């Protein structure tokens, strides 16, 4: 038999909100009693403060966290290099590129160039789910 969680999220939020209201009421009553120099004012103030802290913590936990997926967007750079004169050229990666693949001719000395490196430059962004 499948058991369901005893408390749903909406119900928990209701409990914490009621708890916060009650705690604030206790704090207010405690303050009034303190002004009137009533003996039990400290009990009201401590209970109110403790309850308010607890309820705030609960609500903070309940806050709907926006589901973000940490997507990494890579900018892949292909560097072609001339073996003879050392001329380098950078371009975006294209499917089929690989390190040491022969590339176009060097615009400076007309020798055959080759792909000397393929590496990524990471750009982090967040994608909303």
């Amino acid at each position, binding site marked *: 038999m499948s*058991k369901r969680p005893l408390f749903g999220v909406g119900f928990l939020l209701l409990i914490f909100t009621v708890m916060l209201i009650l705690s604030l009421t206790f704090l207010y009553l405690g303050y009034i009693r303190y002004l009137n120099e009533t003996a039990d004012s400290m009990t009201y103030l401590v209970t109110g403060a403790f*309850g308010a802290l607890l309820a705030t913590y609960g609500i903070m936990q309940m806050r709907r966290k926006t589901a973000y997926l940490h*997507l*990494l967007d890579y900018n892949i750079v292909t560097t072609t290099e001339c073996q003879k004169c050392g001329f380098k050229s950078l371009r975006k990666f294209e499917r089929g590129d*690989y390190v040491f*693949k022969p590339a176009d001719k060097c615009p400076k000395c007309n020798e055959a160039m080759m792909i000397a490196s393929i*590496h*990524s430059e990471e750009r982090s962004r967040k994608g909303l789910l």
Partner: protein
Amino acid sequence: MLFFMVFFLFYNRIQVALWLRDIAGALNRLKVMRDDARRVALTTINEIGKPKEDVTQRVDRFLEYFEISPVNLDPAGIILKLEHLINVRDERFKDEVKMMAPASDEAQTHNLENLLEATWALNTIYRVVRHFYLFGKKTMSFYIIMQLQMLLPIILQEAEAFSGALNAFANGQPIGDGAGALVAAKLMHNYEKVEVAKDVVMAEVPLDGRKLLVLKAEGPGGNVGRPGDGVKALLDKNEGKVSMVVMIDAALKFEGEKTGEISEGIGAAIGGEGVDRYKIEEVATKYKVPVNALIIKESIQEAISPMKKEIFQAADEAITRIRRILAERTKEGDLVIVAGIGNTIGIAQ
């Protein structure tokens, strides 16, 4: 006061509800990653492989693939059983990919294999997390739910790493794990290569008066080869008259360490199931050849994501380190085996 007492009594239940909510969110993210991976795999297979029929069902079948590890109650001979299992798996994967993508060449087949393995990994992570989530919810077991919630950051980190690797595998871009293969490729470039083991190439490279036998997996397809067989073949061929073996591999860094940092040590620097490491240790012990290791540090995400600039640049630093090791520990005329370990996707030789 009664209200607070009730709150404390049900605190565990409230905590479980909050954890389940966290897990449900993570599960949703894992599902998105899994579906995205499946979409990328199908698109790439259709683009590259030009299948004659719809491959969706075949891909879905592949994603549910499993393998049963050899029984380890009697561990004697388990390595041979494991090796046999890996060989069968590799052949099976290759056949599956060939049937899905008949128009792909050798390198593309390897890349598609890698892509499907990453998709399979994401599907498996999703299924396992879903299993424990539903099981925890069903039994309301505090400890199952707590453990799963606490492991979530590590699970999500690994899943995001696989997710980031998809495009690299689909397009054949070098990945961080290929750092060792890149070092070997830089050393052996412009020298004649011969195949010394399945998917492993070797070149004789003169360096600083020594003769290096440099080996790596055959690229540029996504391939790790059988470096264990390669090292064994070279040591046997030279009857153990080798001054040392130097292995270069990418290794996981600790938090706080810099990507691309290099560390030196001893032992067979190679991951995987352990078959290759076993073979290298066996043959090195047989001929009493010292095995030196160089590792290039990177995170798990960096290992299977497109190769970062820092890792690419670390390859040159690794070559400098190799030259220093050769100068300090070998004499001119010595024979040294240099093995570049890792996935050679996007790296030729």
